[in-house]
């Protein structure tokens, strides 16, 4: 029995949250949907941990869904790249759900909570499905599962602007996914297969056709919309800002990262770096957009008055760093990009969790609400400062580690590298500006009279926040785990051309 389960780990990775979603919906007893979701997320995390260990030495785990052998059936394929991403996503899922119980109770009315948790589980299943699948069409299906459920999650926001933000996200997200669908159609037209590994062997024969070039363009643009790469980022700030706190935590730390994985997987594994960067000018485009993303994202963050907006724009800038790493086109650069995915997920989760605590007590997250919060909510604010230092890239936090590797990767590049390093520096200085603005208000302003009585956030919210804050420091000091995993993932990707 146990062996049977162990053989089916790749299927369980997606099936557990997928099956739990209707359970959450059916068992509408108070508190039960949360418990089901939380237990499932822990099991999912355990599964991804086991998968991560199984492929840690470079094996590739191939699982034929329903016993239909690839390339005909749908293949689940686990390697060092996606197992690392799955570990991250399911880990964030656990922390977000730990935070969810109290936070959701205060933000969403009781009768809708079961729907909320089932949408949350569907979103988790969709994101993990995108990561694990080795079938290109399956990517589209899971992309839509995760997207549709995240539209539902965002629309739970209390502000009415959550609705318009969701609508905008729905339009842009659907266009992005449909563009990926068009690209897949063109590839199927030329090769007759949808299995990624099979595509990679068959594409070189037909590489020199306009159909494949068009397919490539559609897939890159589609993935960039989902990734919120500048200038396709307009859906992101409002969607993050008006969503319920816990949704912001989860989506900010996962959804754009998974989109980056889709981009990496198609560009490096399916099309191959030679085609993508040799024949198509992807390197210049990505580098240019990433640099603009860092500059505009960070600059916009400085001028926002809603703290959630500040962090959302900062996310756009941070996505820029990840793409810079990818566009450097070396194993070191790629490893730095993947490392930043991991590190940014941790510190952004920490920051948005802290904001969630503030929101729980104040009911909003405008900069005025932060006046004197360093005195009234010292623990929350301390976690926020740790996350903020991470964004700036201070030593002893995760942000420093990924920027350090990014700079090392850039130094190997000569002239482009010098420009990249200066962009990273400017971005970090802007980060100092937007983080300091909040810290200043929090510690050096007196709280207004009616806000002076506000107490520290409850322990149920502080614990997940501090887990992420400590992770920000832990992975900033003890870097072997994340650096080795990211480097392995990058070598897997570069070796797969």
């Amino acid at each position, binding site marked *: 029995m146990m062996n049977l389960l162990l053989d089916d780990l790749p299927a369980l990775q997606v099936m557990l949250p997928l099956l739990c979603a209707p359970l959450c919906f059916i068992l509408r007893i108070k508190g039960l949907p949360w418990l089901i979701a939380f237990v499932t997320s822990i099991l999912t995390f355990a599964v991804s941990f086991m998968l991560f260990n199984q492929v840690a030495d470079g094996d590739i785990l191939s699982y034929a869904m329903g016993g239909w052998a690839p390339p005909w059936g749908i293949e689940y394929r686990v390697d060092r790249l996606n197992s690392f991403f799955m570990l991250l996503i399911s880990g964030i899922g656990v922390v977000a759900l730990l935070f969810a119980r109290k936070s959701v109770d205060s933000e969403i009315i009781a009768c809708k909570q079961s729907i909320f948790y089932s949408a949350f589980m569907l979103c988790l299943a969709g994101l993990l499905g995108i990561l694990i699948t080795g079938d290109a069409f399956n990517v589209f299906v899971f992309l839509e599962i995760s997207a549709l459920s995240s539209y539902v999650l965002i629309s739970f926001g209390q502000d*009415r602007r959550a609705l318009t933000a969701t609508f905008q996200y*729905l339009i842009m997200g659907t266009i992005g996914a449909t563009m990926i669908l068009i690209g897949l159609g063109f590839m199927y037209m030329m090769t007759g297969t949808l299995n990624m590994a099979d595509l990679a062997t068959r594409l070189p024969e037909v590489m020199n056709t306009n159909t494949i070039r068009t397919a490539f363009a559609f897939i890159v643009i589609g993935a960039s919309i989902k990734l919120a790469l500048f200038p396709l980022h307009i859906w992101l700030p409002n969607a993050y800002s008006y969503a319920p706190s816990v949704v912001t935590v989860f989506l900010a730390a996962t959804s754009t990262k998974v989109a980056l994985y889709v981009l990496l997987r198609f560009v490096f594994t399916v099309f191959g770096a030679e085609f993508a960067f040799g024949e198509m000018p992807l390197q210049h485009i990505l580098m240019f957009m990433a640099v603009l993303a860092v500059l505009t994202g960070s600059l916009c963050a400085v001028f926002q008055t809603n703290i959630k907006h500040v962090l959302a724009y900062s996310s756009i800038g941070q996505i820029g760093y990840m793409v810079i790493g990818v566009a450097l086109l070396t194993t070191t650069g790629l490893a730095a990009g993947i490392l930043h995915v991991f590190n940014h997920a941790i510190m952004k989760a920490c920051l948005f969790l802290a904001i969630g605590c503030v929101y729980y007590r104040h009911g909003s997250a405008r900069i005025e609400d932060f006046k004197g919060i360093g005195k009234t909510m010292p623990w929350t604010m301390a976690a926020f400062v740790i996350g903020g230092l991470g964004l700036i890239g201070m030593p002893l936090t995760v942000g420093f580690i990924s920027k350090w590797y990014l700079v090392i990767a850039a130094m190997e590049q000569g002239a482009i590298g010098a420009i990249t390093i200066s962009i990273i520096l400017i971005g970090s200085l802007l980060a100092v500006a937007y983080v300091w603005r909040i810290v200043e208000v929090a510690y050096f302003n007196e709280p207004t009279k009616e806000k002076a009585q506000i107490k520290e956030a409850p322990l149920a919210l502080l614990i997940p926040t501090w887990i992420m804050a400590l992770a920000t420091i832990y992975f900033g000091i003890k870097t072997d785990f994340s650096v080795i995993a990211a480097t392995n993932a990058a070598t897997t990707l570069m070796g797969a051309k």
Partner: protein
Amino acid sequence: MDTIAGLFNYWIVIVLMMIGFYVVIADSNLIKKIIGLNIFQTSVFILYISVAKIDGGAAPILEDGITNYVNPLPHVLILTAIVVGIATTALGLALIVRIKEAYNTIEEDEIHEKDGTL
């Protein structure tokens, strides 16, 4: 001749796609945006179905004498995509109902006016 009549389906796909895309971008009415999105998606469905067609191909049924048949896989794929499209439309329309309740309008420019954005 071959490029116009022979690729008729693909021309239709391009025309429909651009009509849909234009409506999504240019129209400020939210329901019309959803309709535009639908047209955009439908054009992709036609693209897939056209790819499957083989000249003189029979229906893909296992039977003696049939050697040349139409590829059934794209139809199945598009069945999935149609379901996704319906779910998106339903969710979009449900959102519009709630937007109408919250703002009392479904025109994008009036919504921005009420929120004081743009």
